[in-house]
């Protein structure tokens, strides 16, 4: 039982770490991979907490589909956070 709790605690810490990483990271592609990692760990957690249906949904939608849609979006827009301000100087002036 105690090992189970330690495992869940470790997974939760990993989730928080991945979330902080994806916020701090300036390279948006890496940030998207960070959000994918959150979903992956969350689906493992759902499986451990005996919700296999939700785990399957989270793995399919959170890890695969959302990540891919974000990657397509990055491919069509800009990859680095700073480029947004470089490309459109009017936006920085407005702020």
């Amino acid at each position, binding site marked *: 039982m105690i090992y189970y709790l330690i495992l869940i605690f470790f997974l939760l810490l990993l989730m928080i770490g991945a979330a902080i990483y994806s916020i701090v990271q300036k390279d948006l592609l890496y940030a998207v991979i960070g959000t994918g990692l959150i979903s992956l760990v969350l689906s493992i957690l759902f499986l451990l907490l005996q919700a296999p249906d939700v785990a*399957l949904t989270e793995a399919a939608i959170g890890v695969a589909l959302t990540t*891919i849609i974000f990657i*397509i979006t990055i491919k*069509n827009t800009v990859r680095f956070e700073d480029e947004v301000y470089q490309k459109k100087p009017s936006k920085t002036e407005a702020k």
Partner: protein
Amino acid sequence: MKMKKILVISLLAVFGVYLAEVLFKLDFGRQFFQQGVKDFYLITSPIKLQVANTVTAIVVNFRGFDTLGEVTVLFLATTAMGSILYKGRHQLGERTVLFSGSRIVTTGSRLLFPAIILLGAYVFIHGHLTPGGGFQGGVIIATGFLLMLMAYADYTVSHVVLSVVESLAGITFATIGLLGMLHGGSFLQDFLPNGSLNDLLSGGIIPIIYIAVGFKVGAELTGLIYTALNEKD
């Protein structure tokens, strides 16, 4: 300007008061919570409905109308994204994936593609026996198509076929609901024989609805990915 704000706030306040009144007056399943609605589901779904997976029994049978709403929400979301991205009916932009993958990637994708489709079909056909269901299976199928679209630069899916499949699946769902209305009296009433526990053909209308949902979700998300990949900035 200030008058307008006061007007809006007072309107919202009136609306909120009425909403709160209605919500407080409703006895939101109070008697059921005291008896334990989970016990009702856990006892009824294996014994009366002959469904092994209680989650599926709740999602499709007890809360079938909510699932129809959920499918509608997904449909509207994909339609909205498609209408934003889709530039013209006959002039698609250039693909974001401009080159094919290496030979290893293409061969691996071609080998994996049928296996992924099979897994998705398994997940939604066996939705009432094992964890999973229409939504999960549909997303897995869409992921398989995504793999092919990423590996091959010239891989295409037909939007016409996708829309036909999607519409037929939606019509099947609604028709089964209306048939239940004809037989039993309420929308999505279970009118088919339930069979025996752990059989593939058991659970009444649940397998049919989940197969329809699986096709619908798979077609919708494949179309969404295809449109997003073909989008030109």
